[in-house]
């Protein structure tokens, strides 16, 4: 068993998790930076497919990181990665949850609540941008990404439907010879 590698994985994912304000999906750029660019646990293609598979499976979005753990270190990697993502924010949630009443009233919390939204919007934009850079090459990809972005921005439709339509478009375009 690769203890040193597992330890790096745990530290990397745990530190990402503890600053993941705005959810895990906005952390895609950071996860990609660490998993692909720094540690090389997966390559670009594996990252993209892990992202797709983790979205298709039922359950929480954090499973992108679980799957990267599994690709790099097998079943132990799966469990270590999952625990590293869930535990640090989870412990914080338990602590805050138990002192909620006092904390909710604090001025600090209100200021954090007001400060975060624009930062999270920037992170979401970055996430979309980096994800697009990983996956989108060519006309069809641009059309799909832009189309889904517009549908999500102007309607309240369940995003899963857009993703399923996008897959159908991708497969169809491939059959017609438009996607490599």
């Amino acid at each position, binding site marked *: 068993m690769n203890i040193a590698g597992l330890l790096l994985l745990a530290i990397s994912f745990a530190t990402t998790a503890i*600053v993941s304000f705005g*959810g895990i999906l906005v952390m895609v750029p950071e996860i990609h930076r660490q998993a692909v660019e720094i540690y090389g646990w997966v390559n670009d293609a594996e990252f993209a497919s892990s992202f797709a598979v983790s979205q298709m499976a039922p*359950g929480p979005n954090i499973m992108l990181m679980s799957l990267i753990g599994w690709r790099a270190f097998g079943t132990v990697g799966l469990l270590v990665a999952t625990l590293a993502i869930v535990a640090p924010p989870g412990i914080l*949630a338990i602590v805050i949850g*138990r002192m909620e009443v006092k904390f909710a009233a604090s001025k600090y919390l209100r200021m954090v609540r007001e400060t*975060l939204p624009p930062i999270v919007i*920037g992170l979401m934009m970055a996430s979309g941008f980096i994800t697009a850079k990983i996956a989108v090459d060519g006309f069809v990809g641009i059309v799909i990404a832009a189309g889904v*972005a517009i549908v999500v921005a102007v309607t309240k439709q369940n995003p899963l439907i857009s993703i399923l339509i996008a897959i159908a478009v991708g497969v169809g375009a491939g059959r017609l010879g438009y996607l490599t």
Partner: protein
Amino acid sequence: MKSDNSEFQVGRSGHVSCLNLLLGFMTVGMIGFGGIANALFHVVVEKKKWLTAEEYTMTFGMAQILPGAAPINTSIMIADRFQGLAGVVCAIGGLLCVPLISLIMLALVYDHFSDFPDVHNGTVASVAAAAGLSLGTAVKASLRVLHNVPTILMAIASFAAIGIFRIPMIPAMLALMAVGLSISYFGRSE
């Protein structure tokens, strides 16, 4: 704040057993496609009636400003309220076991068929769609949140730091929060 303590009594200790937490959250994991937020509300509030909608919203709101996935933090806070740490272990175990097994089975199926052009194209398309999803959500939220120059500048700075300059998340977040908090602090005292 206005809310008095009696209003904030989310759930009662011991009200839901560990086994029930395990089974309830297992359902959440199984039916939660594309994230578990909707499934969580459905099971906890509508089906099992463990919490009222108000209690749930309050807990979820608290979880949202914490780091980590909000639905998971919400699950943890709910389970802790009912059964303490044992409840948390049951709830998270239940929540994740089916999804993790399906995840690996899907990954194995994917690996087996990844050479087929249809599978490859479908994957690329779904990731492109996910990129669009992030961008579209950001645009939608922008209209609500970015209502003055400082908020617009903050959003641009956070996009550039992470998306363009690829600054590591921890220093970037610390710097952005420091700037944001000083803007709201000094902005108010003026």
